């Protein structure tokens, strides 16, 4: 089971328990016990909360499945690419401002900084001193610019050779 499915199961279980509790409270009330209105309301609210959580968990499951599908597609593409270019890496750069992206093959020994320069040339966007490189997950790669693509992968600094070119921001 995926994490998402386990989460849905867990929340469904809570929902089930809450419904059982409500049933017991109503049964008790039917027997003429002191009216436990507060307990009914609490149980109903718990059901509502559990139902909302199920909805959220189903959404997460949907996203997790989409992520898995993409990962499988990426893996297939990477295998095919490695077969065709055994000594080269396929890198992808996206400029988050212009929304333009480029990908190209380059030797595994290419330094990240050099790959970025080549990407800027292909994007026809000059590199500014304030620009930075990050992974799509947001990891700043400024300290790693002198590493080769092989280093980045072997040291698990990146999970894929996909990079975003970002500009500076102000705030805080």
């Amino acid at each position, binding site marked *: 089971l995926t994490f998402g499915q386990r989460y849905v199961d867990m929340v469904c279980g809570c929902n089930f328990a809450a419904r059982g509790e409500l049933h017991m409270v109503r049964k008790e009330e039917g027997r003429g016990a002191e009216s436990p209105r507060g307990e009914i309301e609490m149980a109903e609210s718990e059901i509502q909360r559990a139902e909302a959580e199920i909805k959220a968990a189903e959404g997460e499951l*949907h*996203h997790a499945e*989409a992520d898995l599908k993409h990962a499988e597609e990426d893996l297939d593409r990477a295998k095919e690419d490695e077969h065709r270019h055994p000594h080269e890496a396929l890198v992808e750069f996206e400029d*988050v401002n212009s929304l333009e992206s480029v990908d190209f093959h380059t030797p595994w020994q290419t330094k990240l900084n050099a790959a970025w320069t080549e990407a800027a040339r292909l994007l026809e966007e000059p590199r500014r001193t304030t620009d930075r490189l*990050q992974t799509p997950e*947001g990891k700043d790669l400024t300290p790693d610019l002198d590493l080769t693509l092989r280093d980045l992968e072997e040291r698990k600094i990146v999970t894929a050779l996909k990079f*975003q070119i970002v500009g500076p921001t102000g*705030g805080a």
Partner: protein
Amino acid sequence: MSIFGQAPVQNVAQGRQAFADHLKRALGNRTLDDVGWAKPDDLTLLVPLFATRSEGNKDAYLLRLCFDHYPVWPPSTQFVNPLTLDYRLTEDARWVPQAPGHQEIAFHTNYNGSGQVVCCSLTLEFYKVNHSVEKDLVWQGDKQTFVATIAAIKRVLLPPYYVGRSSA
């Protein structure tokens, strides 16, 4: 034209058109489902984000971007309760990440009584609260897109900056 020193002006028609155009370019050959985003209406984008704690555990957040001042102004940017898709002061504070110490971005659950502010020059609220900013860091609507806003926020949702959920 620079927006430096000006007050934000809403333009729904322009925002709708620019959002549609930029979203199409951002997605490329992918669909909204492919990237896990949702577009509940023509001016709103919902973006699920995961924040990573130092020990590796992840917390889920939902970012809501609104484009009614876009692209002259950056998108309105709020973390929302994923169950209500809204942000209520105090009770929804836990749906806002806590990441102190970053020099460029800060998350405020209630900034000087003005509500939630993602304090970054790539968000609309930053200008609505009249936050100070260097001229060359001001949003440039003719060059920047909402993807830059998302990318900037992601930078802070990682160690050592991200420490957990906010509290009221």
